[in-house]
């Protein structure tokens, strides 16, 4: 018996097989690459605004006040230990010192104007969680999470910027394993703190025990 040849003439060239294969796998690669690109963009400072110094109506410098002058965070952010909000200081707080010091500096004119007219200084928000997220400073301070852990070296910033992404994965990364970050309660306001013998994990585990630190990861912890 001879070979039965197909009646249909060969429409496609043999190379088409390769092209088809390349297209199928190629599509997968393109989708994966797009997903990866998306994830990169989503975490970039373009989206999160992390690392971008924000222009303010008054060029207030934490480096100057908190760093060089050594003023404690709580002098200005008075409610950080007792409420959800750390609080932005009212104009009166600036005037405590600036009524006398640098009292005719042009840089401080908006502060004086605000004091005269009782209009608020329009500070631009640096951090802004979406309204559907619940965050509370006081619990973090009470359980030994340092300002520095979330806000970075504020005492080195001339204009303030956001250090971390504030995305959900960032919150969860700590809520799942807080021993990597917690510090003794009296070190919370200190910038540049290091675990005394370099062993954060051992100290962290002790502190979790001593201060009964158990952050939750249930959705209704942060979305209520």
């Amino acid at each position: 018996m001879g070979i039965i040849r197909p009646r249909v003439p060969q429409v496609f060239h043999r190379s088409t097989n390769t092209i088809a294969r390349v297209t199928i796998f190629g599509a997968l690669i393109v989708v994966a690459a797009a997903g990866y690109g998306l994830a990169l963009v989503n975490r970039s400072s373009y989206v999160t605004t992390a690392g971008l110094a924000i222009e303010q109506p008054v060029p207030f410098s934490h480096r100057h006040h908190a760093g060089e002058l050594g003023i404690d965070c709580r002098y200005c952010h008075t409610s950080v230990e007792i409420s959800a909000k750390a609080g932005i200081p009212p104009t009166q707080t600036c005037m405590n010192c600036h009524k006398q010091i640098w009292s005719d500096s042009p840089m401080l004119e908006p502060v004086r104007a605000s004091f005269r007219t009782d209009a608020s200084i329009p500070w631009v928000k640096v951090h802004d969680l979406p309204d559907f997220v619940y965050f509370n400073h006081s619990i973090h301070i009470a359980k030994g999470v340092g300002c520095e852990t979330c806000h970075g070296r504020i005492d080195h910033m001339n204009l303030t910027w956001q250090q971390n992404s504030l995305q959900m994965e960032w919150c969860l990364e700590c809520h799942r394993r807080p021993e990597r970050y917690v510090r003794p309660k009296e070190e919370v306001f200190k910038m540049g703190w290091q675990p005394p013998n370099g062993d954060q994990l051992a100290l962290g585990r002790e502190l979790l025990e001593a201060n009964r630190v158990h952050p939750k990861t249930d959705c209704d912890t942060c979305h209520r």
Partner: protein
Amino acid sequence: MSSRVMARALGVAAFGLALVAAPGCRQDMHDQPKYVPYRGSRFFKDGRSARPRIPGTVSRGERDDDTLLVTGKADGKLAEVFPEPVTLAMLERGHQRFDIFCSPCHDRAGTGQGMIVMRGYKQPTSFHDERLRGMPPGYFFDVISNGFGVMPSYAAQVPVADRWAIAAYVRALQLSQHATVADVPAESRTAFLEGKTLDPKTGLPMQDAAPPDGRAAGSGHE
């Protein structure tokens, strides 16, 4: 290139762009139409959503019945006593609050040479001055609440209980600069004169002779 291929290519490009731009969108649920702290208002003339207190009202928990506690005065005169017994916890709280709110000008020892004074602020009298050593506790409470000369009032930053705690700590600071050997408990005096460290809580010599932890003595900022 045919126009159909062009159109398709454009479509793919547009889709890709939309995909990349999507996470940048911040929509309704991010910024809900409600007042949250520090969010402005277009309804009120001063542009603030936080409303000032209506004149003549008293907020819950704000006590104005106990004049000694709230004014630092008894029978119109500065109080010679504290409204409640001074405890170690109160002194520790006062220490912490003093370092936050007073030390920028009065410095940690109360001599009046804080960082802000170094930068040109008027130098206050040292707390160890004879006149101030003779002042009753109510005086310190009064100065924190109402200010004194060029020093502003700290009533907005320091709540009533903390003002008393600071007043108690200022008293402790004053005593610390004028302590004599007679103030050391009799049973520890020999050890003290030999140069041994005493436990601040019990007043007895420290059990182990290890030097105090240098780390805790840091000033809080580098």
